[in-house]
């Protein structure tokens, strides 16, 4: 995380206009009993990571829903200045969207809509997830009334996101997450782009981050891009203040060997 902070700060320092975004599954995975303390503590440290790094918007991920209604709502309340978005997760108890479907940020005189899309889940006791393509159609249509640049943060997977970009007009960019690897940006239509920093895998989680330089014309149309994937390896220095915080966290507990079944 200290290396991620270094990369983010460097990009922000040289940018005229800057956004820090996450496509989802930033709070949890399905293995909630993992030995890594930040996951085992119910996502509290994960929220602190988002706050400290200063994310502008984060999509609610399907794996985040594994936390359950109570824990998830507690974590959402702890976010400070970070917008958690999803246009297709409803709370079964109320029938309403769990978080905002999108937010609009104004940068350089442009209004940029950031819409969250969550991957489908099966038989969740607390939440229902509408099909991503349907949700994208509905909320891109609504957001267009308020913005001239449309960005989706979607953990539906790279292949599904390419389909969404091809079938829903007016999407400029999809920050992708979830299954499927995407080593290079995909361009499903002449003026849309799909990018994904890392593969969704417990063997990856946080190993890569990506930087996109996107140029939009005065009407908000994407006309140029330069994308780089950054491996957060030893060549990236730790950010001192974040490292200090990380070092203060409880150390990971050794994993207990699985109990032999009779």
């Amino acid at each position: 995380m200290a290396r991620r902070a270094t990369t983010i700060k460097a990009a922000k320092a040289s940018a005229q206009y800057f956004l820090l975004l996450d496509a989802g599954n930033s709070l949890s995975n399905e293995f909630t009993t993992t030995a890594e303390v930040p996951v085992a503590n119910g996502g509290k440290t994960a929220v602190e990571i988002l706050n400290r790094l200063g994310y502008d918007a984060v999509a609610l991920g399907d794996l985040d829903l594994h936390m359950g209604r109570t824990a998830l709502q507690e974590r959402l309340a702890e976010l400070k200045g970070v917008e958690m978005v999803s246009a297709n997760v409803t709370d079964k108890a109320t029938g309403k969207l769990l978080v905002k479907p999108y937010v609009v940020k104004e940068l350089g005189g442009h209004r940029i809509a950031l819409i969250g899309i969550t991957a489908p889940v099966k038989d969740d006791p607390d939440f229902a997830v509408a099909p991503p393509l349907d949700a994208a159609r509905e909320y891109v249509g609504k957001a267009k009334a308020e913005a001239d640049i449309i960005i989706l943060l979607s953990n539906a997977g790279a292949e599904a996101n390419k389909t969404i970009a091809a079938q829903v007009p007016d999407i400029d960019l999809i920050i992708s997450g979830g299954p499927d690897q995407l080593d290079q940006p995909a361009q499903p239509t002449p003026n849309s782009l799909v990018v994904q920093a890392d593969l969704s895998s417990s063997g990856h989680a946080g190993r890569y981050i990506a930087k996109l330089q996107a140029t939009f014309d005065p009407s908000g149309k994407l006309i140029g891009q330069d994308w780089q994937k950054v491996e957060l390896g030893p060549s990236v220095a730790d950010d001192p203040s974040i490292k200090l915080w990380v070092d203060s966290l409880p150390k990971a507990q050794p994993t207990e060997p699985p109990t032999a079944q009779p």
Partner: protein
Amino acid sequence: MVLDSRSRSDGFAHKSRGKPVSPQKKPKRTSKGAQGGVFRAAPWAALGLAVLVLASMALLGGPNRLASALARRVSHAAGAIDLTIVHSNDTYGYVFPCG
């Protein structure tokens, strides 16, 4: 539509078809009369605005398209933008990368 000065009721000259017209003598109006004029004009102004909005929506394909067109028009003044986006996904809240 080009208005002819003869059709105007405010007494001011209007350039019509290139023919200059001298200002006519403006009739005296009391403030009460002016207020009455405003009240008389208000419904017509509202009607005109409504017609303009409906015509724009019909041309553009609905209220969302109209608002979108207006949003884009506002942005035209801003010019092109170079936006730097740093993005991540599926970090699972890990402090240290896994694997």
